[in-house]
């Protein structure tokens, strides 16, 4: 649309600016709080300009952690979170793409039954099956391990469904042409399906990275050892009691650090992400 309506421009920009400020302000406060000493934050009103303790606070949380509540270093937590946020999406993509490939391209008995069984699990989020899952993990001796942290989150109906829908848009003739060319099923998968799925995989990776990174309830249950904490529950573990009992500047610094990686992933993969959601290159 080519239109020149200054008032409309002004109003729409005003709405956008107000919206952006509303979203950004808490993050800004969080950042400001992470750069002051505890005493400074405890003043009323709290300062709204960055203070001088930036390096000190971040150095302390990264290397030593809080002195109250959980005392694990945030660097270790970040590492745990990273491992979890990488293993979950990669595992999901690997398993989902293969199961979707089987469901779409192979005729085997009860094919639809299997598809619906996978589909039905969509109705059972982690929270609903968390107690039995915990029991299973505990019996397998996987408490406080990376396997225990990631394994239950890897099975994914959503991703399988997404890949299935994508595969169904690939023309049958492509599979037939590959057959004429002499490609077996796995060759077809590797040479044709896999490259065509790249953007879908990228989109899924972004979504699932954030999903894995932001997991709260499951890591809270499965980890009791501080060295296995992810950063999201690390924040919670730093908060122990009343208002004054916590080192808020360190909690805020940890929160800032926890926000960064997902933001980075979204920023870096934005192009691929959008492509994966809208592109239909066939």
């Amino acid at each position, binding site marked *: 649309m080519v239109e020149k309506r200054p008032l409309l421009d002004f109003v729409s920009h005003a709405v956008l600016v107000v919206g952006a400020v509303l979203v950004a302000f808490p993050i800004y406060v969080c950042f400001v709080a992470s750069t002051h000493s505890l005493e400074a934050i405890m003043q009323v009103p709290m300062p709204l300009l960055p203070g001088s303790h930036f390096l000190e606070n971040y150095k302390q949380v990264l290397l030593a952690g809080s002195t109250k509540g959980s005392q694990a270093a945030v660097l270790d937590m970040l590492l745990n979170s990273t491992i979890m946020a990488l293993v979950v999406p990669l595992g999901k993509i690997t398993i989902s793409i293969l199961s979707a490939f089987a469901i779409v391209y192979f005729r085997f008995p009860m094919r639809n039954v299997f598809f619906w069984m996978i589909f039905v699990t969509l109705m059972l989020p982690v929270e609903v099956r968390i107690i039995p899952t915990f029991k299973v993990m505990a019996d397998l001796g996987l408490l406080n391990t990376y396997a225990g942290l990631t394994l239950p989150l890897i099975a994914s109906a959503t991703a399988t469904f997404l890949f299935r829908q994508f595969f169904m848009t690939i*023309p049958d*003739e*492509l599979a*037939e*042409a*590959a*057959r*004429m*060319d*002499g*490609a077996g099923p796995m*060759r077809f998968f590797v*040479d*044709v399906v896999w*490259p*065509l799925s790249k953007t879908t995989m990228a989109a899924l990776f972004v979504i699932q990275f954030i999903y894995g990174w932001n997991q709260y309830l499951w890591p809270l249950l499965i980890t009791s050892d501080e060295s296995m904490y992810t950063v999201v529950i690390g924040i919670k573990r730093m908060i122990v009691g009343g208002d004054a009992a916590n080192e808020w500047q360190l909690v805020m610094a940890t929160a800032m650090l926890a926000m960064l990686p997902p933001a980075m992933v979204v920023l870096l993969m934005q192009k691929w992400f959008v492509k994966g959601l809208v592109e239909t*290159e*066939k």
Partner: protein
Amino acid sequence: MADVSLRDVRKSYGAVQVIQGIGMDIADGEFVVMVGPSGCGKSTLLRMVAGLETITSGTISIGGRVVNDLEPKDRNIAMVFQNYALYPHMSVFDNMAYGLKIQGLAKAEIEARVQRAAGILELSKLLARRPRELSGGQRQRVAMGRAIVREPSVFLFDEPLSNLDAKLRVQMRSELQALHRRLGTTTLYVTHDQVEAMTLANRMMVMNGGHAEQIGAPLEVYSRPATAFVAAFIGSPPMNLVAGRMTADGGAIEGEGGVAIRLPVARPALAGREVLLGVRPEHLEGCAESEAMLQPDVDFMELLGSDSLVYGHLGTNKQGARVAARLHTSVVAKAGHLPLRFADEHLHLFDPASGKRIEP
């Protein structure tokens, strides 16, 4: 190079038989077109030859070898699909080379074959491009190139030109002809376009409802259609078919509502018999009223330039015996009766029950 033979080939999906026993011998190097309306089973038959559909009964052999249970790749064939089915993420070169790579040919050999095919199809400058950067005609050529590089003994084409615009279709048609002349490879070609069938085929198979109505050279099919279906399907505009009963002297037919057509030469042997009389629009010509064999009332006309198509009806029922005639524009009369005649060699008679041709 190979001949192809179909022996009583049948295909059923459950109780529904979609291919009802087709037999044909295709000689080495022959260009055979299978033509018919949508749903007549022509694509299914081609896919059975390709090995993409199983054969319920009967045998298909290529080069004397029964291929019923062979995988497509082992049949030494290549197929061109209607929507091209190019691998979208591969360059033109890789698209053409993919099958050869799987066969495990040496790099130099692949390169040579692809370059040769690209040369034939004038694709040499496009080898690095992706399919989406090509026009429809170019994509079609890549699809053909992918078939050529395999140096198969049989080419299979499944409506390859139907996604192209009219002008490009004519151009690709002549390119296909040139290609066949050059390579001399046995070719099976499926289309619903009877013009494509007429122009490309050495022999054509007109299909309807899962069986072959007629197999023959295009001109033979045109001039001596074996059934009323073939008569109506081949030719544009389609042949006029008028139902009626032969008069007692066999000199004319009379239908309901005053429909009447006089025959150029009387057929006393057929006197009293119900027939379908067929005559092509292009074989009708204007004449004096005294010589007229039929006198349709003109409903409307289409002026095509040198020719005009005149549409009319016989008798009192406007929707009954409709007749079309392709006449020289100078002859075209205004509305009203239009006296027309035709030569005896252009008369076709069919049995209305079986649709089979009656030799006049």
